[in-house]
C-alpha cells in the first residue's frame, strides 16, 4: 500500500497504487439548487450508452431525491454505516476512509448490491418515507418537508476504489484526461469493482456477464465536446470542464473557480477517501446542516452562504460562471466577466459563447406595422 495525498481530506491516506495524477482531470460541478429531477440527463445517457439487453436497470446517470431516495437502494446509508463514525477537525478528516477501514486481505470495505436494489431508480422521488398520519384537523407528514435532487454519475475519482479492486487491472485511469474506463475485453466479471465502488457506479451487465461503467462520453471529450448528460441538462445545472489540484488552480477556469476559488462546489461524501471529481453546490434550503456536512464535508455551510450571496447580486463572477452552464456544447476552459456579460473560451482561447448576466426584458408592441397584424402573445 502506498501513501497518497487526498486534498479533499487535507491529509495523506493509504491506497493500493502510488499517487499518479493525470495531465488534466475531467470534472464537473452540479448545482443542486437548480436541478428539477426531469431525468433528461438520465435518459440522454441511457439512450446513448445503456439501451442494450442486460442493461435494463443500468443507469450510469441517475437523479435521486435526498434524503429519501437512492440508487441502488440505500447505497449511501449502507456504506456510511459500514464505515462507522466519521469526524473532521476543521478541514482535516480524522476518521477512516474505506481503504483504511479494510479488513486484512481486502483492499477496502464494500458490499455487492442485490438486483432488487437497482429496481427502483427514482424511488423516493417526491415521496414521503412513510404514510401520513391523520391528526384531528389535518394530515401530518412523517418527516420534515425539505428535500433536494442529487444527480449522480461516475465521479472519475482520483483514487478510484473500482480501479484498486480489480485483481487483473481491467480498470484504468487515462493520463490525458483522468477518465476512468473499464476495459470490456479484459474484464472477467468478478464484480469486485461493483462491490468496491462506494457510489455504486460500476454495474454488472446480465447478458455480457462483465461489468460496465460511465465512460464520461470520452469520444466527445476528446473532441472538446461536453458529455451527453451535461449538454442536455434542462435546468442548466452543470458546469463541465477540467479541475486542477489545489496547487495548480487557474482562477479563470470555471470549474477551478467554483471548487477552489469560491469553494462553493464540494465533493460528494469526501470522507470515503476517493477524491471524487464531480462536485456539488449544496442546496440552500435544507433543514439540516448536519446532513449537508455528512454529504459534502465541512465546507457545506460556507458554500451555502457564498451561493446565497451571489444570488443576491453581490458576486457577478460567481453568477457569471453559473450563467455559462449548458450555454454551449463545447468544453469551456476559461471565462471572463465584464460589462454585464460572461464569455466562455475554448482551449485555444477562441470565444465559444457570450451570455448576459441578466437576460434583457424585451417588450414587443402588440401591433406589428411591417405585416400590419396584431399579436396577442405579449402578455
Amino acid at each position, binding site marked *: 500500500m502506498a501513501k497518497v495525498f487526498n486534498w479533499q481530506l487535507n491529509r495523506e491516506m493509504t491506497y493500493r497504487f502510488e499517487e499518479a495524477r493525470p495531465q488534466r482531470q475531467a470534472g464537473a460541478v452540479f448545482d443542486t439548487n437548480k436541478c428539477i429531477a426531469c431525468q433528461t440527463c438520465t435518459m440522454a445517457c441511457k439512450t446513448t450508452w445503456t*439501451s*442494450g*439487453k*442486460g442493461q*435494463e436497470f443500468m443507469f450510469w446517470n441517475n437523479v435521486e431525491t435526498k434524503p429519501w431516495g437512492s440508487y441502488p437502494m440505500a447505497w449511501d446509508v449502507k456504506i456510511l454505516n459500514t464505515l462507522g463514525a466519521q469526524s473532521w477537525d476543521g478541514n482535516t478528516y480524522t476518521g477512516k476512509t474505506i481503504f483504511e477501514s479494510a479488513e*486484512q*486481505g*481486502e*483492499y477496502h470495505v464494500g458490499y*455487492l*448490491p*442485490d*438486483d432488487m436494489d*437497482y429496481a427502483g431508480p427514482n424511488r423516493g422521488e417526491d415521496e414521503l418515507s412513510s404514510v401520513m398520519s391523520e391528526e384531528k384537523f389535518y394530515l401530518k407528514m412523517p418527516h420534515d418537508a425539505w428535500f433536494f435532487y442529487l444527480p449522480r454519475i461516475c465521479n472519475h475519482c482520483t483514487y478510484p476504489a473500482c480501479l484498486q*479492486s480489480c*485483481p*487483473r*487491472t481491467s480498470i484504468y485511469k487515462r493520463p490525458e484526461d483522468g477518465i476512468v474506463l473499464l*476495459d*470490456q*475485453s*479484459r*474484464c*472477467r*466479471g*468478478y*464484480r*469486485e469493482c*461493483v462491490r468496491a465502488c462506494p457510489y455504486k457506479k460500476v*454495474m*454488472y*451487465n*446480465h*447478458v*455480457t*456477464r*462483465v461489468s*460496465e461503467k460511465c465512460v464520461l462520453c470520452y469520444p466527445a471529450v476528446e473532441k472538446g465536446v461536453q458529455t451527453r448528460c451535461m449538454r442536455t441538462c434542462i435546468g442548466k445545472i452543470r458546469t463541465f470542464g477540467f479541475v486542477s489540484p489545489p496547487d495548480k488552480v487557474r482562477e479563470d477556469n470555471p470549474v477551478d473557480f467554483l471548487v477552489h476559488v469560491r469553494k462553493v462546489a464540494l465533493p460528494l461524501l469526501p470522507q470515503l477517501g476517493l477524491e471524487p471529481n464531480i462536485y456539488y453546490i449544496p442546496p440552500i434550503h435544507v433543514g439540516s446542516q448536519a446532513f449537508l456536512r455528512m454529504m459534502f464535508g465541512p465546507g457545506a455551510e460556507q458554500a451555502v452562504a457564498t451561493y446565497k450571496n451571489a444570488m443576491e447580486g453581490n458576486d457577478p463572477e460567481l453568477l457569471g460562471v453559473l450563467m455559462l452552464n449548458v450555454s454551449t456544447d463545447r468544453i469551456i476552459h476559461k471565462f471572463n466577466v465584464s460589462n454585464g456579460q460572461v464569455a466562455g473560451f475554448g482551449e485555444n482561447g477562441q470565444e465559444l459563447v457570450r451570455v448576459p448576466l441578466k437576460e434583457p426584458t424585451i417588450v414587443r408592441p402588440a401591433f406589428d406595422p411591417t405585416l400590419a397584424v396584431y399579436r396577442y402573445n405579449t402578455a
Partner: protein
Amino acid sequence: MTLEPLQRRIGRRKLIAGAAGGAMAVGAAAIVGCGDDDNGPAPDWAGRVVSKFIRDDVPIENPRASLWGSAPKVEVPMQPQASALPVRMQPSVPSIRVCSLNDGKRIGFMLEWADPQRDEKVVKTPEFKDGCGVLLGPPEVPATYFMMGVADIAASIMHWRADWQKDVDDGFQDLETGFPNVAFDFYPPLVDAPRPLVVSEDYPEAGRPWLPGMNAGNPLSQPNKTSAVEKLLANGPGTITHMAVQDAIGRGTWKDGAWRVVIARDFAASNEGEIELKGGQEYALAFTVWAGSEGDRGSRKSPSNLGKLFIENA
C-alpha cells in the same frame, strides 16, 4: 455416487487427519478408482498425481464412465488463498479427489468434490459460478508457481466453468434465465431466437453495439459456447489470458451434492507459450476450486499446494 457416502468419507478423512496431527500418508493397498465409492478413502496425494495410461480413448465426455474407475484416485486438500488480494482465508471446499488417464495423445483429469449448492448461473449481480482449474507447468518451478505461474515461467491453465457447461448443455443463459418476467420493447436479435442459441455471422453489424463485452471480443460475453473448459495462459496473479486456440474439452455433472468434472487436452500444445506434454515425464501441477454460492470468483478461491504430475508411458 451418492451424497451420503461422499460426506461420510470427508468426515472420516477429517477424523483421521485430526488423529494423525495433520499430514499423513495412507498406504494404498488397493487402488481406489475415480467414481469408486466403496473401496475406502482415497490416499492423500502426497503432492503427486499419476496419470494412468490406457489403450482406449480417454472418456472425456462422460465423467461417470466406468473407465475412470481404473485410474488411481488421490485426495487433494485445498488451502486458503492468501497470496493475492482479495483473499479467501478459509477454503470453501476442504478437499477434492483427483485422478487422471491418458492415451498417449490426450490427457484427462477427473475432479470430484462435495458442493451442496449447484451454481451454474451468473445472470444476476450477486450470482457466481462453481468451477475448477488444472494448472500445468514445467517440472522445476518455484513454490509460488501454484498461483497461476510466475513472471518468467508461464502456467498453462484449464478452467472448467459451471455456467459455460450449462450454456453448452441447454443453450445460452440469457436475461430471461435470471429475470423471467422481464419486459422489453426492442432488443438486438438475441430475443426469441431458437435455443440453443446460435448467433449468426452477420450479428456484428446487427446487434454488437448493444452488447459492449461481446463487441470488444471478450470470450466471457460470447453467447455461442462450444466447450465448458477455457484454456488460459498466466504469468502470476492478475495476468490470466484467454488463449487464441481453444481446444480443451471436458464435462461436468452435478449429482447428489457433488460435482464430478472431466477436463482434458491434447499432449500437443496448440498455443504459443502453452506447455507440451509427453509420456514418461513429470510436470508441475496444481488445482483450484470455486464455490459460487460462497462468493468465490477470481482470487476468492481455494487452491491446492503445488504438486507433480507424472504421465505414465505406453
